[in-house]
């Protein structure tokens, strides 16, 4: 009888522990997303993809109730993204700058982590890891563990003092790091940086309406995508020309809250080509030659997942 009681207590206790742990990991991520949204900071970080490296600078501040943010890719011709409240403007080489009505910059850090971590519940478990020293500061590891093996895991190291993100990595199911992001410098200040103050005076392009016609863009149904990993939802589908080579493609965009996957169906290229995958960091490009058409899948998912998605695409009857 006493034995049973002990076992029962043990089970209860471990369940309690588990619940606590869960709350803490979740709370830490919530604190992080709040810190990123509220604090004035000037940070530099690098993204390492295999042998490649991309340095970024990231500024955020609040000036008279206006939320201002700048993200700049520092190498090459670069990319500059500017956010004023819920208008995000992208400055890119070779393209006219354009604005979108969205309240978050699409950068190397998944948007859900900067805004609404609730979007991750369906596909990921939050697990608290150990404490480590990152960028010279004590940090807490939080792991987003994918609920099945069709997705990558995402690990984050959060500053214990400021709750800001210090390091993050896409990790595969064998715990191999595929792509990581590491802060090299951060200064959290009372007042926002001067670049942000200048930003307020700039006239930016008016946002192109991307979401107004959502119900319509979902009408595309020439193709049936037979299989998707659990948790992925269709965000849009349409037929449009690709910017770079002017090729026509039937397009589908999916997201599981953390990562996006694009599916393209195009006319086949001539010649005998085997299907195959390309990877760069966590990003996979899988090109499937289905004979009468080509299916390409792009996204931060394992090669096997991209392959399964691509091969499941069929002409709808």
């Amino acid at each position: 009888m006493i034995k049973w009681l002990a076992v029962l207590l043990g089970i209860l206790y471990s369940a309690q522990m588990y619940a606590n742990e869960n709350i803490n990991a979740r709370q830490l991520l919530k604190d992080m997303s709040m810190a990123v949204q509220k604090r004035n900071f000037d940070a530099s970080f690098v993204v390492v993809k295999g042998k490649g490296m991309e340095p970024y600078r990231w500024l955020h501040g609040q000036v008279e109730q206006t939320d201002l943010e700048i993200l700049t890719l520092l190498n090459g011709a670069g990319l500059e993204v500017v956010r004023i409240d819920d208008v995000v403007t992208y400055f890119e080489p070779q393209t006219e700058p354009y604005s979108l009505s969205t309240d978050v910059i699409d950068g190397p850090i998944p948007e859900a982590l900067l805004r609404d971590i609730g979007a991750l519940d369906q596909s990921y478990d939050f697990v608290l890891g150990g404490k480590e020293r990152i960028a010279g500061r004590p940090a807490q590891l939080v792991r987003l563990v994918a609920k099945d093996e069709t997705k990558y895991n995402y690990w984050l190291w959060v500053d214990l003092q400021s709750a800001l993100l210090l390091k993050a990595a896409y990790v595969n199911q064998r715990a191999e790091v595929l792509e990581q992001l590491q802060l090299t410098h951060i200064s959290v200040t009372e007042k926002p940086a001067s670049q942000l103050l200048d930003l307020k005076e700039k006239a930016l392009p008016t946002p192109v309406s991307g979401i107004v016609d959502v119900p319509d863009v979902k009408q595309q149904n020439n193709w049936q995508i037979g299989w998707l990993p659990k948790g992925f939802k269709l965000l849009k589908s349409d037929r449009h020309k690709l910017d770079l080579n002017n090729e026509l493609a039937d397009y589908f965009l999916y997201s599981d809250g953390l990562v996006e996957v694009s599916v393209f169906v195009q006319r086949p290229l001539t010649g005998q080509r085997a299907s195959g995958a390309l990877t760069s960091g966590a990003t996979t490009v899988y090109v499937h030659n289905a004979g009468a058409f080509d299916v390409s899948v792009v996204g931060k998912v394992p090669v096997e997942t991209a392959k399964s998605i691509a091969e499941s695409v069929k002409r709808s009857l």
Partner: protein
Amino acid sequence: MTQSKFDVNNEQMTSEILDAERELNSESQAHLNADKFARYSLIGDVMRQKDQSTPCIDITASVAAAIAEEPVYNMTEDAAQQTQQAKENNVVQMSFWRKPLSQVAIAASVALCTVVGVNNFMPQNSIDTQAPVLQSMPLTGSVSPVSLSSEPAMQSAERGVRELQKQRIGALVLEHQRQSRMAHALSQNTKQAEKGNQEEQ
């Protein structure tokens, strides 16, 4: 006559003072030609290749004079153009990069992605196999092998297809990046729509 003699005398005195052959005192200073002294020391410095941290030849006055004599072309039009440009700059040119450089770089960034990828281009079944450490041949994987006897035309055709495929992959990666930018807003929208639907039911 006396004037020119005085000049010559001055010149000599200046030179002597510069060379420390004559002591600089109130008497000799009266004969010192300051302009000449500066010029002589500059000549000396240049000949000794002394590092000139500040330019000593002051040409601003002469340049300013020359500019003042230049005829003025359509001053108002120029000014208008400048303000126009300034306005445009304010709208578009807020970043640090300029057009010519950026054109190189987009090609480079797309190339980077594909080139990095091509190294990893391998058949699906050998994704997990480790490449041997010593490799005389690059790991080309599923790119179909070209036999030595095949005709050059075939090779170039194959290269053409590969080039096209490379181009297409570059375009796909870029398009994925662009489309992902709306993902967050779209997913929020879908969520709201779902909520709305539930409430209606």
